[in-house]
């Protein structure tokens, strides 16, 4: 009987340790919009011509490609900042 009484505190204290478990809760890494996963296109090369207007058309096309690419990078930055803010909350 006395032995049982001596054993009691040890058993009682071990209860808290036995029941405690770690809960695996994981947040899924957010998917980025598929449009942003495309890489920037190469710049267009000018074909052999002596007309300045043709060259200007190519330059205009290339400027446009650059601006599109910049929009994509800016959107990536915005996406990253916003998602990070949500993740760290």
């Amino acid at each position, binding site marked *: 009987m006395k032995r049982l009484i001596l054993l009691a505190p040890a058993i009682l204290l071990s209860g808290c340790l036995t029941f*405690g478990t770690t809960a695996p809760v994981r947040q899924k890494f957010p998917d980025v*919009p598929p449009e942003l996963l495309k890489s920037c296109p190469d710049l267009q090369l000018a074909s052999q011509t002596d007309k*300045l207007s043709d*060259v200007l058309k190519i330059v205009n096309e290339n400027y*446009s490609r650059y601006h599109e690419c910049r929009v994509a990078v800016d*959107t990536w930055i915005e996406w990253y900042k916003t998602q990070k803010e949500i993740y760290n909350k």
Partner: protein
Amino acid sequence: MFLLSFIPDALIQLIVNGVLIAGIVGCVVSFFFGFFVRWMPWVIPYRMLLQIVALVLLIAGVYFKGGIGVEMEWRERLRIAEEKVRVAEEKSQQVNTVIEKVYVDRVKTVKDTQIVVQEKIVEKEKIIDAECKVPKEALDILNDAAKSPGGKK
């Protein structure tokens, strides 16, 4: 412990409380055995057994009471964490939708501007080409500049 998650909380509480109360009652009875034995003389031969069972029930009751408290606390923490993750994932999805729309709008603006400039070039083509001829060397330089320095990935 894993199997505990399949049993409803209320049922676990009920069983644990039952064991604890039975243990307390048994210990009280065995402590004041002389007092209770007046009404139940037939339990005299079982005194030792009653003491042991009551003590075991009391220890088990207190053990499980403490354990269940911790278990409930963990379940609550898990619920809160899951809720947080759910809200974050929902927000993240909403942000994606908004960002996607903003991106499409910005690209459309770029394309529209390009079309306008292209139309201007076509409109002024004769003026532009009238007094200027582009030498081949200039085109080569322009093309060299347009090529990706690192090569295509």
